[in-house]
């Protein structure tokens, strides 16, 4: 047997470190060739940058009411005009974007976390665990999610939850209705993976369940998770907007894209003052389309088997 000097080994390790990310790099390279996906990604990034940094450069604040400047059409001082309380629409759209994007991202993360964990447990242990988890998921899937969210929203108003907290509760609500579909997909992947030969090797090696799950099975579904997660952000932003539009999600004065479009509910605003509802509407449209295009590109690269 050869004794290996540790120094040599360490030197080799650093030298080989680029190899570590070779799979990841390959994917990036493939993705960068897809022009549409790249443009989607750029739009998403621009939107994030604008929403999170943009308001810092704005001379206006969100809740500063200016009676002299009510319902003004776009002009040099207010690029997108002002609303009924004289607030700058551009600033509000950007601030609303912060909330909408955060809600979208956070509820996606939470539902991916819950969905993949429960799906993985169901697929790995099968039997009674599987039955319990998947029947709960089935139950949630049979209830149309929009009415369910409406009921939740109405409850929130009934209980007089402070508006500051509502944003977080809306995130929880969205992930609550979002996880079952994801859990199903992860469970299916798990069922097929656990029969693969390398998992039998893991059984013969006598590895612990925890290691089998987290070191062997989950890394194999990460590409799928990334794709689903990306596509889910768009869905979550849409759901949040719908809720807020109906006044059941995040409440004014906190602006979100959804409750800003609420302006279109008023016939006069709808016909006479399009600058109130077109900017937030366009923001939702552009963000969701960009995220979906980017997600489709990611799918082609990371998960080619899913392609139809």
């Amino acid at each position, binding site marked *: 047997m050869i004794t290996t000097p540790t120094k040599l080994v360490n030197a080799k390790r650093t030298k080989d470190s680029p190899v570590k990310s070779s799979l990841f790099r390959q994917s990036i390279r493939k993705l960068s060739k897809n022009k549409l996906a790249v443009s989607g990604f750029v739009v998403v990034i621009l939107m994030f940058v604008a929403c999170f940094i943009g308001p810092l450069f704005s001379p206006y604040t969100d809740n500063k009411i200016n009676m002299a400047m009510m319902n003004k059409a776009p002009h040099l001082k207010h690029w997108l005009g002002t609303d009924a309380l004289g607030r700058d629409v551009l600033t509000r759209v950007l601030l609303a974007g912060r909330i909408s994007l955060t809600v979208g991202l956070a509820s996606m993360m939470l539902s991916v976390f819950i969905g993949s964990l429960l799906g993985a447990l169901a697929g790995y242990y099968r039997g009674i665990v599987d039955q319990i988890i998947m029947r709960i998921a089935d139950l949630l899937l049979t209830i149309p999610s929009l009415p369910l969210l409406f009921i939740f929203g109405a409850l929130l108003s009934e209980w007089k939850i402070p508006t500051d907290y509502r944003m977080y509760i809306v995130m929880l609500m969205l992930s609550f209705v979002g996880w079952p579909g994801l859990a199903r997909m992860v469970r299916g992947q798990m069922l097929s993976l656990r029969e693969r030969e390398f998992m039998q090797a893991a059984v*013969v090696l*006598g590895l612990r369940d925890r290691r089998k799950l987290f070191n*062997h099975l989950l890394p194999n579904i990460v590409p799928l998770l990334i794709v689903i997660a990306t596509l889910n952000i768009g869905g979550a932003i849409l759901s949040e907007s719908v809720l807020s539009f109906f006044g059941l999600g995040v409440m004014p004065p906190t602006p979100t894209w959804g409750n800003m479009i609420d302006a279109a509910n008023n016939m006069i605003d709808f016909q006479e003052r399009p600058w109130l509802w077109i900017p937030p509407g366009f923001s939702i449209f552009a963000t969701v389309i960009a995220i979906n295009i980017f997600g489709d590109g990611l799918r082609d690269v990371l998960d080619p088997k899913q392609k139809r």
Partner: protein
Amino acid sequence: MSEPLLEVNHLKKYFPITKGLLNRTVGHVKAVDDISITLQPGETFGLVGESGSGKSTVGRTILRLTDKTEGEIKFKGLDIHNLSPSELRAIRPKMQLIFQDPYSSLNPRVRVGDAIGEALLDHGLTSKGEVRDRVLDALVSCGLSSYHIDRFPHEFSGGQRQRIGIARALVLNPELIIADEPVSALDVSIQAQIINLFSKLQETRGLAYLFISHDLSVVEHLCSRIGVMYLGSMVETASRDELFRNPLHPYTKALLSAVPVPIPKLKRDRIVLKGDIPSPANPPSGCKFHTRCPYAVDICKHQIPEFREVGSQHHVACHLV
């Protein structure tokens, strides 16, 4: 003689055939039907037979990858199929499996070093600081280089992957290795390397192998005793020299006559078997081989031949011997 390392007594493994909505059992596939094997420490037992004869199922049942139907499997005196999960986990490192397909038996997302070392950590056999050295030792003793440790499986060739699989089994210092056709997926030059690696490791570490193969020339090179399986049953066991010099069962004779020899002009009496191996769901009555046996007589159709001793360590199941 010392206590055998592995003792398989009258092992049976039937897979149920189910039908209809209620999953009624309408029959059984008798994959393994009454097999007995004893293996001494440091010995190599070869299990040969054509595809579908149940050799892989024997190996997988010994490792409890599938549950047995009947019989007894003792490893170092412990009944494998009656151990609690924690007891079973404790002896897992002592009996390892090497897979046929080096492509599917390595997780594509686990680094080679982790794949080899993780079982050591999981069983608490080595401290975290020493794992890397143990893994490097195993890599080098299997003919790989130390700088391979941080790579992913897709960066290796088939032969190298098979070495990784062997290193993964070896690092645990097992006493028994079940090799399930470890070379049949490799090309001939690599086969030779791997087989030489097997015999070298046996010399240095005193391993016992249960070597499952359909390639008689490989088995002849490596094994001290050989068992021939047909349709789930053992038809003949003998020491290697005895089996190759004096095969008694007509099936063994047919197998041996099919081994290619490197002398092209040599005229041999090839025994060519007609037809395919019958379905194990509905095996022939009497001697299972009588449908294809060139010497079959009436008794073969009705009476199951006894597996009896005909010489020293030479057992055969045939009416005509």
